[in-house]
């Protein structure tokens, strides 16, 4: 849906999606040097299936909230994939869902992670996830 190639992203909200069903979709890819004080993607949906929501390649991510997902059902999805050198003072992923199944929520590849909260999940039922 959205691809962003930038040097610096600050104090920005890149994408908001309000949908019933999201299937087989890659919503946002970001390639940037620096991401600061930004909230990249927020999603409100009933169903998310077979989707990769957000991929990020960056040198530095600071004071940012990368992805928030509010959904009823999430299946067969990878929510967030982050490849960065340094992550500081950031909250990578928050998920609020009833049911999460057959999904991989977060992949992070980084050299340094400090003062950060990588993942918060609030769900009724979680099955077959890693």
């Amino acid at each position, binding site marked *: *849906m*959205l*691809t*962003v*190639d*930038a*040097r*610096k*992203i*600050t*104090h*920005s*909200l*890149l*994408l*908001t*999606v*309000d*949908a*019933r*069903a*999201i*299937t*087989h*979709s*890659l*919503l*946002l*890819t970001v390639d940037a040097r620096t991401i600061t004080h930004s909230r990249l993607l927020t999603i409100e949906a009933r169903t998310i299936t077979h989707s990769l929501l957000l991929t990020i390649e960056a040198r530095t991510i600071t004071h940012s909230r990368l992805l928030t997902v509010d959904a009823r059902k999430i299946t067969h999805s990878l929510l967030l994939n982050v490849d960065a050198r340094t992550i500081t003072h950031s909250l990578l992923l928050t998920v609020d869902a009833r049911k999460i199944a057959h999904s991989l929520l977060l992949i992070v590849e980084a050299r340094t992670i400090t003062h950060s909260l990588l993942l918060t999940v609030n769900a009724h039922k979680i099955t077959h996830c890693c």
Partner: protein
Amino acid sequence: MHDKITHSLLLTVDARKITHALLLTVEARTITHSLLLTVDTRTITHALLLTVEARTITHSLLLTVDTRTITHARLLTLDARTITHTLLLTVEARKTSHFDA
């Protein structure tokens, strides 16, 4: 190339169906306080709605989309140096599927 785009709404589209379309391309040094494209439609398929190449984008919302179904679409591609205080894309839809970004 435009030098500066400020306080601008470049294009609004109200259509039933959008297929195989590129609605708007923008090349500018600076984009500030602007909403470039608004789209109100039922169906979007095989479309790239907006491409933007800019040095600096500040205090802008580039694209808003209100639709029922989006399939096989890439709505916005952006090449920029600095993006600040900006919301790039808002999408309101019933169903989104088969996006390639």
